[in-house]
């Protein structure tokens, strides 16, 4: 069982964009206002290039560990994979906090206790304990689910938007640059692909097709951002959970209730898997580095999930501070690992094995 090219394209075009529809739109609107499409487009273009590099590496059909070991030796490979797994655990933190806030705000009328979110870590541990290549099969289904959810929300909300609010473009000046800097934490898709190297069906042409599909998904994100800002305009900054907010002005809501939540729940399901993906990547990197003896996958997945749960518990009411550290002081970590590393990895030699 390997991740087929179709499954990979489903992930890049449908699944990966879903993670950018929750907090990111409000965050972009906060910095770039009506120019929120520009920083998003810059990020997406950079990620498309990084995805291209990562998939070029995957075309070789070898694991990251094998390629690193062939070039730098086993010890260096172990060190790199350990560091990379730490990055993935760090990268997992923001989606987890985002998911927690999303769950607490959208799925409940009143603020529930953190224990209601805790079962997610069981889910993440379960997923991470399974072979990462099993993900391909889920993407087959999640791709369709995400497309339905996304299309449903857009259909219900596109009519309510005033697209003139996006003009004039480029007026935010430094806000665009600020938008790019503050939202790095949402763009590390290429880094998620690196642990998959060796598990993806290795065929020529995967890289450029993958990048193309990523751009298709990016276009969908940009369309969503346009609709989002067209509806909320200056108040967009306050609409923290964009996918749940965008379609709430649908005229049928007063008659039928929040029917749009059907689509929100579909995307919510996709986001569940997406939030667990960095944890899976982290476990996979460690397994590549240290072997898969006996129950190590299970121990690692449970251990990493437990650590993340503890961190989320600690940071429960400090989301603002965490955000300012991740997207402020430590923002450089994301471009380093999600853009530079995939590009540098192209220099790796093929292993003789």
């Amino acid at each position, binding site marked *: 069982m390997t991740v087929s090219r179709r499954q990979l394209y489903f992930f890049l075009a449908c699944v990966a964009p879903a993670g950018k529809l929750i907090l990111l739109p409000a965050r972009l609107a906060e910095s770039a206002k009506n120019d929120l499409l520009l920083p998003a487009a810059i990020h997406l273009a950079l990620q498309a290039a990084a995805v291209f590099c990562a998939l070029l590496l995957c075309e070789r059909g070898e694991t990251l560990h094998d390629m690193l070991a062939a070039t730098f030796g086993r010890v260096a490979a172990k060190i790199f994979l350990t560091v990379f797994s730490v990055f993935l655990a760090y990268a997992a933190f923001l989606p987890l906090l985002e998911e927690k806030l999303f769950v607490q705000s959208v799925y409940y009328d009143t603020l529930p206790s953190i224990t209601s979110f805790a079962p997610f870590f069981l889910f993440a541990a*379960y997923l991470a304990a399974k072979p990462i290549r099993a993900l391909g099969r889920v993407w087959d289904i999640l791709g369709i689910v995400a497309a339905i959810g996304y299309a449903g929300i857009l259909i219900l909300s596109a009519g309510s938007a005033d697209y003139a609010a996006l003009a004039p473009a480029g007026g935010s000046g430094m806000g665009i640059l600020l938008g790019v800097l503050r939202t790095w934490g949402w763009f590390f898709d290429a880094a998620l692909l690196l642990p998959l190297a060796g598990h993806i069906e290795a065929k020529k042409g995967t890289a450029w097709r993958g990048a193309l599909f990523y751009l298709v998904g990016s276009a969908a994100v940009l369309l969503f951002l346009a609709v989002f800002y067209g509806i909320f305009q200056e108040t967009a900054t306050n609409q923290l959970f964009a996918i749940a907010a965008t379609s709430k002005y649908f005229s049928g809501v*007063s008659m039928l209730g929040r029917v749009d939540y059907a689509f929100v729940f579909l995307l919510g399901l996709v986001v569940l898997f997406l939030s667990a993906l960095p944890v899976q990547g982290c476990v996979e990197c460690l397994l590549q580095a240290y072997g898969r003896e006996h129950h190590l996958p299970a121990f690692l997945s449970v251990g990493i999930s437990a650590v993340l749960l503890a961190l989320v518990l600690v940071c429960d009411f400090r989301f603002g501070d965490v955000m300012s550290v991740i997207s402020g002081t430590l923002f450089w970590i994301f471009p380093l690992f999600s853009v530079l590393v995939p590009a540098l990895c192209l220099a790796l030699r093929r292993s003789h094995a």
Partner: protein
Amino acid sequence: MTVFSAPAPRAGAVFPFGVPHKFRPPPHTPCMKTVTGNLEKDVSALKKLLPAEDIPTFSFLSGGGLPFTAVYADAVTDKELLGEQVIEPLLGYGNDPDPAHVARRISSPEARLKRSLPELAEEVLEGNPVLLWEGGKEGLAVGTKQVFSRAVAEPSTDVVIKGPREGFVEDVKINSSLVRRRFKTGELRIDTVTVGRRSKTVVCVCYLEGTSVQSTVDGIKEKLGRIDIDYVPDSSYLTHFLAERPHSLVKQIGTTEKPDIFCAKIAEGRVGLLVDGSPIALTAPYLLIEDFQSSEDYFVPAYRATFTRLLRLFALLVAIYFPAFYISAQLFKLQLFPVKLLLTIAGSIRDIPFSPSIEMLLVLLVLEVLNEASIRMPKYVGMALSVVGALVLGETAVSAGFVSTPAIIIIAFSGIGLYAVPNLIEVTSVLRLAMLLVAGSVGTFGILLLSGFCLFYLVTCENFGVPLVAPFSPLVGRDLRDSLVKFNLRSLPLRPRTLKSPNRRRLK
């Protein structure tokens, strides 16, 4: 437990379901014994192996004065046939003790000469009387087994308006004849395997040579060969041994009671199993989508079949999720209800003493009890049960203020929806309960999480190398033509790619 293959009947004797004794050690026999030719000693030795009171002997002399003794199992031997085909012809026989001559004299098409007494004992136990005679160095087992079986009738679990109405019965011979009648080709292989140390249950492995995947056939035979159980009362016992995840909540082996479905599945490249004593045939590899398909879908226009399949899926989703979402909306997210409906619900639950989840669980429990009781209850009491269930428990419980009307409506709808896909009822009823529990404790997020768990679990399930959720995951575009949607028969020229049949084309 032995596995063997019987592709074609031997010349001169037709016994396709005969058990391959020569491969099998006899039960409870410390040492092998053979027929000596001394009638008294041989009968005594055979009776030692078969001391049961219902295994009598019958002695007679041939026309030439040669003493014969027939040993038979009283309850399972057709004595009339024994008289007609064996004893009567031998009354006119001379006194030549040569086994070949004796075997030629009798008029049964199933006659086997055997030297080993334990093997002859097994024949007796299977209902085939054994003939011993003075000077004979072999015993003669004659196939005059008495078969008690109900008539072939439409199975109550799979009723159709259009299409064949035959259903399997408990006798494996009749069942395999129903299969053989539908495939008039030598490619149909019916291999026999016996399972069960004491029951020696005959299992027929049916497949089309060149169409089914040989590794699947071998895998099934190997798994059957490894079963070491004393008694196999029904085919469902075998599913535990054939499944790759025996403790799985989801079934992994297909089941059907209808020969037309069974044969259609074999024609697609699957392998079928007929188990003696069970009217439920098994098929492998199993795809989850199979249970959303009915045989009738193939006898009605494609658009109608598509509609009914989608309806089944909708009914199933409603059955599983509707009670759970109602509870989670009521407890955690009232926004999900439109205002007017919310007011109606608020009015109906105002005086209910229980929390919504407890209330729903109670109603669900009552439904499950009623369901269980109605299946086991004698038919005469059924009407009374309906009255008690509908009026006393339903109407009175609402008017007494124990449960609310929406709860009863939702559970009733869910209960009906579950039966839209009857083959999955064991799984879906448990899933509905699990969804209800997480909805009551964690809310909508719990429902999504559990759905995520189930989704990931399902996509990782495989049996005989075929993914359970195919053709959706992995997505096989062409196979989607006969999945939840159904294309016209002309648009289905190929067998499902998922099943990896070596012979892909079925329509030219």
